[in-house]
């Protein structure tokens, strides 16, 4: 590789890294406890006792209470509110009902109650406060809403560019070095340079996947808007122009669910979006079904049921951009392979922090030196340290 192309890649690496490093460090620090949020929730929530342990609320096993009953219980504790979402669990009879003052209430005005569908008992309320919620907000949008989300998405893309340019620079740097070299006794700079390169190259694929899927996750709101405007509008064309269905005329959820199951037999629902919300039309219960294999479980297919008459309108699998979003979630969270996977996720998160902090150290130490000197350092595998 010529010195001039090394210089170009060095500058790309330096600037993309410099812009995103502080935010990436924040994401790594806040993300670390978030990996274990299920475990932390369970510990702080105590041991939940279910009436029918191990029976998923998403199924239709005998003994599970009707959905209408569950909804009535939820609304009884929230007088004047309307249903927004009902979500199910595949492993336990727990389920959630989300209500709000209006069908299009924003997230901040929603209340989510957790129920045991086998006993009808309230298990608790999903609390909006707490340390974990604070960390999650910081991690997803820094309390800045959509703008914050998209900003962090851009940081994710810069991080990806830093990974690519760093990998390109790895080649000339390692020309005469064996893989895994860690020269710790020559100078502090060389020691951290070798650590930066080794940690970076071994965690490269993981960092790239988590970085890119994180950036895709920041597009959640635009993607859902796009789906609602294009796909959903096409699916409910016959209803265009009709006035919104008032909640007082919502029909039976159990009849609607039975109709939806008839249309997509063998699958279980993940959640129901109610009329007027961001996951349905103004006239439908949107029952989002999971696929029936482990791979397709995360790829949802909504069945639209007329909320007044309980008649089946249509069902259509989600477009590619929603599928990309659905697959990006587990790949970013690391929550799909048990506790061991989460622990590995945490270690690789610490590796990423090592790469970031050593990178900052390498920059601060020689930030006044010319790029020619830095190119020389790369070309000699770190033997010629940059001098002012």
């Amino acid at each position: 590789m010529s010195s001039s192309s090394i210089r170009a890649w060095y500058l790309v690496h330096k600037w993309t890294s410099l812009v995103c490093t502080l935010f990436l460090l924040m994401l790594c620090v806040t993300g670390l406890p978030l990996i274990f949020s299920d475990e932390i929730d369970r510990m702080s929530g105590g041991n939940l006792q279910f009436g029918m342990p191990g029976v998923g609320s998403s199924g239709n096993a005998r003994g599970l209470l009707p959905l209408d009953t569950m909804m009535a219980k939820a609304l009884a504790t929230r007088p004047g509110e309307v249903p927004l979402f009902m979500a199910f669990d595949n492993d336990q009879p727990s389920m959630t009902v989300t209500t709000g003052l209006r069908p299009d209430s924003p997230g901040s005005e929603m209340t989510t109650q957790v129920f045991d569908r086998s006993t009808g008992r309230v298990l608790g309320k999903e609390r909006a406060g707490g340390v974990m919620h604070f960390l999650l907000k910081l991690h997803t949008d820094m309390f800045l809403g959509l703008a914050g989300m998209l900003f962090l998405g851009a940081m994710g893309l810069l991080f990806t560019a830093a990974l690519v340019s760093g990998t390109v620079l790895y080649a000339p740097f390692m020309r005469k070095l064996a893989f895994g070299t860690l020269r710790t006794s020559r100078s502090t700079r060389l020691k951290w340079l070798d650590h930066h390169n080794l940690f970076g190259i071994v965690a490269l694929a993981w960092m790239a996947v988590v970085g890119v899927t994180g950036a895709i996750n920041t597009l959640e709101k635009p993607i859902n808007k796009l789906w609602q405007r294009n796909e959903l509008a096409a699916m409910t064309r016959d209803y265009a122009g009709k006035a919104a269905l008032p909640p007082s005329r919502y029909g039976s959820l159990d009849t609607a669910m039975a109709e939806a199951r008839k249309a997509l037999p063998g699958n279980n629902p993940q959640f129901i979006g109610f009329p007027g919300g961001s996951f349905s039309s103004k006239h439908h219960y949107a029952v989002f079904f999971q696929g029936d294999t482990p791979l397709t479980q995360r790829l949802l297919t909504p069945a639209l049921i007329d909320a007044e008459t309980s008649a089946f309108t249509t069902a259509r699998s989600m477009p590619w951009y929603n599928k990309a979003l659905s697959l990006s979630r587990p790949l970013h969270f690391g929550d799909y392979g048990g506790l061991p996977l989460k622990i590995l996720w945490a270690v690789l998160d610490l590796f990423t922090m090592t790469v970031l902090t050593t990178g900052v150290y390498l920059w601060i130490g020689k930030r006044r030196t010319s790029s020619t000197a830095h190119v020389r350092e790369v070309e000699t595998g770190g033997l010629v340290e940059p001098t002012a």
Partner: protein
Amino acid sequence: MTQRRRTRQSLLMIFAAPLAIAVLTGVALIAALTGDGWRDALSWFGLAVPILTIAWAMRTRLT
């Protein structure tokens, strides 16, 4: 063992180990998505490789 090689390595030699680790990582990330049981175990093994590589380097490659 000597860390510095007299001859320059080809790109393939430089990236052989990193590429193997990246492929294993990719297999690991997808394996657990496609099911449970042995697929989870495969993903644990695959993602442990980068971590074990660091441990190996710190034991045998420190100079």
